[in-house]
């Protein structure tokens, strides 16, 4: 009758192997363990298969090619590079180009998104409908198509540099300083003439340091103004202090360093001198920002609508104007809803920037994952490096944005 007792009193029963499948307490654990083991085996099998196939084909995994001369040229390079530089240097040029376009696109997409999201809730019928049209058109067509459309329109509509040539040119420079061509926009570029400031990199670091100092000083002024306001109830006028703190130190520094502007000039086939913002960069930047901006607009709208209408009414009852209500009451609270999805949009921009090759922009997918991969044939190594790069960047963006999210989320005390 031992059997019967164990039926009526299951807790005292001893653990038996069959209970792994029959007992609900263990069953789910058992299945999870089996699934994990099978998954691990499958991954091991695939990896092993890859290595074995490589070995039979006489290939091996080696990153030695990164030190070899790349042999190809890149038109947009933020650091020094020529065709004799190594493949790793070419990868760095690509990485910087990826970071540049991602950063620019994140900034402008946020601006587009916030403006469109707020305007979509506008009481003005035309404005809100226009914004709906923008959002629906741009987010419902793949970003690759947008990149190609914008680039194609740019190359077709803008004049070629040779249109600027001749006595009666078909195209002229704007203010004799800016040239808009189908290869990009040429703008005047700053440079320093003072012999004491010969290193351009250090000069810009100096300028940034002075600007950081100005930022600190203006923060102090604002802090002081708040202090006065709390004591007396009247906020002192500070805008001329702030303006002076921003303009004067940097202006003096630039004057001392002998700032001058180099005007682009048509020489031979292309404009020379000044700064060139390539057509590919513009197309990619614009397409990524306007596409992702449409998504961000929806987030912003959702965030604003998540704030109870009572908040707006309460602010109105206190006498705040609608614009101040939006800036001081609604948006700060809406940020809590907006930020988490915004993180994934920033990640999307960074990852979508890998479509750059469609317009010939030399991002890291085009250099390391394109030309280097092809010239060396090291497909697996290059793709592994690319994966590592995008993963690292995405995780860094995530960490940074989550940090920001913590600072704006509702503080529960």
């Amino acid at each position, binding site marked *: 009758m031992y059997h019967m007792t164990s039926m009526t009193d299951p807790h005292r029963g001893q653990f038996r192997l069959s209970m792994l499948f029959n007992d609900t307490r263990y069953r789910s654990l058992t299945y999870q363990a089996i699934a994990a083991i099978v998954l691990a085996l499958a991954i091991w099998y695939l990896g092993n298969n890859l290595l074995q196939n490589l070995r039979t084909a006489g290939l091996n995994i080696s990153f030695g090619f990164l030190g070899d001369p790349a042999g190809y040229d890149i038109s947009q390079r933020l650091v020094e590079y020529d065709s004799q530089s190594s493949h790793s240097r070419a990868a760095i040029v690509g990485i910087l180009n990826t970071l540049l376009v991602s950063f620019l696109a994140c900034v402008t997409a946020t601006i587009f998104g916030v403006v469109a999201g707020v305007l979509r809730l506008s009481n003005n019928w035309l404005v809100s409908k226009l914004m709906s049209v923008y959002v629906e058109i741009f987010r419902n067509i793949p970003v690759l198509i947008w990149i190609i459309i914008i680039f194609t329109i740019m190359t077709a509509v803008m004049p070629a540099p040779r249109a600027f040539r001749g006595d009666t040119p078909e195209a002229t420079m704007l203010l004799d300083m800016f040239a808009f061509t189908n290869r990009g926009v040429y703008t005047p570029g700053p440079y320093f003439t003072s012999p004491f400031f010969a290193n351009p990199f250090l000069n810009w670091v100096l300028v940034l340091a002075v600007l950081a100092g100005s930022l600190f000083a203006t923060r102090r002024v604002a802090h002081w103004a708040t202090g006065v306001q709390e004591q007396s109830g009247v906020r002192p006028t500070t805008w001329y202090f702030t303006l002076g703190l921003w303009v004067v130190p940097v202006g003096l520094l630039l004057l001392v360093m002998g700032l001058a502007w180099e005007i682009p000039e048509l*020489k031979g086939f292309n404009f020379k001198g000044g700064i060139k913002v390539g057509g590919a960069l513009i197309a990619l930047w614009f397409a990524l920002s306007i596409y992702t901006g449409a998504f961000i607009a929806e987030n912003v709208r959702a965030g604003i609508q998540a704030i109870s209408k009572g908040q707006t009414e309460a602010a109105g009852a206190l006498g705040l104007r609608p614009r101040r209500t939006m800036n001081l009451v609604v948006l700060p609270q809406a940020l809590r809803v907006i930020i988490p999805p915004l993180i994934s949009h920033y990640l999307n921009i960074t990852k979508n920037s890998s479509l750059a090759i469609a317009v010939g922009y030399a991002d890291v997918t085009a250099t390391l994952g394109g030309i280097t991969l092809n*010239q060396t044939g090291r497909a697996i190594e290059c793709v592994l490096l690319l994966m590592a790069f995008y993963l690292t960047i995405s995780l860094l963006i995530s960490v940074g944005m989550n940090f920001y999210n913590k600072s704006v989320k509702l503080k529960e005390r």
Partner: protein
Amino acid sequence: MKKSAFLGALTVASIAASAAVAQDASTVDQIKERGKLNCGVTTGLVGFAAPDANGQWNGFDVGVCRAVAAAVLGDANAVEFVPTTGKTRFTALASGEIDMLARNTTWTFSRDVDLKFEFVGVNYYDGQGFMVAKDLGATSAKELDGATVCIQTGTTTELNLADFFRANDMSYEPVPIETNAEAQQQYLAGACDVYTTDASGLAATRATFEDPSAHVLLPEIISKEPLGPLVRHGDNEWGDIVRWTLNALIAAEELGVTSANIGELGASAGANPEINRLLGTEGTLGEMLGLDAEWAKRAIMAGGNYGELFAKNIGEDTPIALARGLNAQWTEGGLLYAPPFR
């Protein structure tokens, strides 16, 4: 949920296992079992490989694919044409997605040795050239200092271009482009001053322009570009078949065997023993390749001999209008020289 993960893992594992098995069977057996030759070609370069209005692939490289299919499978149409870009072609070949690559691919040391491919011969001796608009007034590539150059990425032309400008102490701005069609569009829109690729490719591209005479090819040829079909390392029987099919096309021209007279010449053994061996009326060359006796006959009948393929697709009577030049038979002062069939 757990069950589906388990089944998913099983499926992945079994796919991987079947892929591993497929790698072991010989390429010829795989093709015969499949009933189709997977041949990698360009995404579209008129004269070399491009689909016509009916979706039929035509061209000089396509001719090589069809000849091989005719030799192995007995049907010149039993070819699956896989369009590849400069970037995807080697991965496609190395992974077994295609059996052979006939895509204006330059035979270089590192591709042959380091990438583990086998170039079976040369079907077009080419060199890299430059195309510019006529109204630019340039007469030599040495005048291109500062120019913006459109270039297909992942090609040897990219490296030659860098070398050429460095050697002549000139600067340029590269615009990397994925396919020939995109390059053409950019060049015509004036987004680049110069388009550079193999001279044959430039001629083929220019032939499709609305006004070909408004563009000139500069006289400089800055590199050697021997273009030829290639296969993977390691399956020498398959490499032999592709190599000797190409040689058969070249030898046929030299021996005067054309698609017009092949029926007569191949019907019974004639006076010329080499023609007899080639067409299988004498000897056992087909058997040595693991094919039947009429393999070469079918290959030649598929699109004609080398000269006929050339004349029909890229020769002087076509819009592309390429002269034979280096690609004439050795007996005519060219470089084509098929080893003897014996």
